[in-house]
C-alpha cells in the first residue's frame, strides 16, 4: 500500500495540520500526544474532512487534489473510529453487513469467514447496547472488513480494553494482513502497541510530522506511554 499526502494543509482549532508524506507499507502506525492531529489525519484520508490544500493519493489514485475530491463512499477505505460509531438502531448483523453492498472494491472477502474469525456467530441477532466493550470492538472491525476496503483506518482501537482483551485485539489487527491482506493505518497514543503491530511509525506533534521510522523490535517491551 502506498499513501501519499503531498503538501496537505488542514486548519484545525489550535494549529494547522501540515503534511508531506509518502508512505509505503501494509502496517503503518501514527502516534503522538492527545490533540496532536492524529484523528484529523485519519479523517482526511477517509474523506470525512477535506484539506484546504494539497493532494492525497492511495496506491496512485487521487483521493483529493486542488481540482478533485473523492467522497468517502467512493474511497473504499474502512474506518474504525475511537468511539466505534456502531449504529445503535441496528442489530449486530445489521451493523456488520451495512457496507457489504459496496460495489467499488475489487476485493473478495467472504462475510462468513470474517464472522468466524472474529467469533461473532452467536452475537448476530443481539442489540448493540447488549454487547461488552470487546464485543463492540470486534463488531466494528468486522463491519469495516466486510465492506472490502483497500485500507483500514484504526483510531485508538485498544482504548478502554483490559490488558487481556488489549492483547487479543492487537493479535486480531496483526492478523488483518495475514488473513485478509488488508493494509492498515493505526493511530494510538501508545507507542508500545504500535511497536508490536507496525512496520513503519510516524510521530506527530501539533499537526506536523516529527519523524518517520521503522520500529525497533527490541523496544516492544517498552510500556512507556507518550501522553
Amino acid at each position, binding site marked *: 500500500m502506498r499513501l501519499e499526502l503531498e503538501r496537505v494543509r488542514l486548519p484545525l482549532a489550535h494549529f494547522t495540520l501540515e503534511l508531506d508524506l509518502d508512505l509505503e507499507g501494509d502496517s503503518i502506525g501514527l502516534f503522538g500526544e492527545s490533540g496532536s492531529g492524529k484523528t484529523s489525519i485519519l479523517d482526511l484520508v*477517509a*474523506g*470525512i474532512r477535506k484539506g484546504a490544500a494539497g493532494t492525497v493519493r492511495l496506491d496512485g489514485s487521487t483521493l483529493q487534489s486542488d481540482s478533485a475530491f473523492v*467522497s*468517502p*463512499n*467512493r*474511497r*473504499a*477505505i*474502512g*474506518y474504525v*473510529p475511537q*468511539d466505534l*460509531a456502531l*449504529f*445503535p*438502531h441496528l442489530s449486530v448483523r445489521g451493523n456488520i453487513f*451495512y*457496507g457489504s*453492498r*459496496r*460495489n*467499488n*472494491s475489487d476485493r473478495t472477502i467472504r462475510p462468513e469467514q470474517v464472522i468466524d474469525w472474529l467469533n461473532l456467530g452467536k452475537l448476530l441477532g443481539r442489540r448493540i447496547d447488549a454487547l461488552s466493550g470487546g464485543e463492540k470492538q470486534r463488531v466494528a472491525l468486522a*463491519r*469495516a472488513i466486510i*465492506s472490502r476496503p483497500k485500507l483500514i483506518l484504526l483510531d485508538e482501537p485498544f482504548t478502554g480494553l483490559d490488558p487481556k482483551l488489549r492483547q487479543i485485539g492487537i493479535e486480531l489487527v496483526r492478523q488483518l494482513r495475514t488473513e485478509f491482506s488488508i493494509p492498515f493505518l493505526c493511530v494510538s497514543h501508545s507507542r508500545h502497541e504500535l511497536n508490536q503491530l507496525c512496520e513503519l511509525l510516524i510521530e506527530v506533534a501539533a499537526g506536523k510530522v516529527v519523524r518517520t521510522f521503522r520500529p525497533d523490535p527490541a523496544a516492544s517491551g517498552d510500556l512507556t506511554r507518550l501522553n
Partner: protein
Amino acid sequence: MSDQWEIIVFTLQVCFGSSLIILPPGMALAWWLAKSSSRLKPFIETIVSLPMVIPPVATGLILLDLFGRRGPIGSFVWSTFGIDIAFTWRAVLLATAAMSFPLLVRSARVGFEAVNPRLEQIAETLGASFWRVVFTVTIPLASRGIIAGFLLSFARAIGEFGATMLVAGNIPGKTTTLSLSIYSLVQLGKDGEAFSLVAISVCIAFVVLFVSEQLLGKSRQSR
C-alpha cells in the same frame, strides 16, 4: 350525536391529512436547520416560527388573499384545474397545515440534532450514498423527534380555529371542525353539547401530547 360524530371524523381526517402533507417538507427543513451553518439560518428559523406568534386570523387572512379565487395561487388553481380552495375542506387542510408546520419542524429538528454526525460519516465510509445514509441512519435515529413532531402538529391542527375560520369559514357539513363547532354551539346557547365536544378535544389532545412528550424526552436524553 350523528352530526357530532361526523364533525369528529372530519376533523380527525383533515388534521391527519394536513400533518401527513407537511411531514416531508417539514422533515427536510428540520434536517437543514439541524445541519446547516448557513447565514440564512436565523432568518429562515424566524420565518418558520412566525405562525406560532402572529394572530391566527392574520395567518388566515394571508392564506385567504393567496388562495382565494382572486388570489395569485387560488386563481391559478381555479383556472388550471377548476378547483376551488377557499371555503372548502381544502382550505381547512391548508389552514391547519400552515398553523401546525412550525411545531413539526421544531420537534423534528430536535430529533435530527440528536443524531451523532460520526455515525453518518462512518456510514459513508462503508460505501453508503447520501440518500442511503439519510434513510438508513439519520431518519431512523431521528425518528422519535419526527414522530413527536407529527403528533404535536396533529394536536395543534385539532385545536386550530382562527386561521380556519378566515380561510374556510364555518360551513356546516363542509368545513366545520371540532373547534368551529364548539364556537357555534356556544353561540347558540347549547353549552352542554359544546362541553361534550370540549371533552373529546381534551382527550385527543391529552393522549397525543403525552405520547409526543415521552418521545421528545427520550430524544433529548440521547443527545
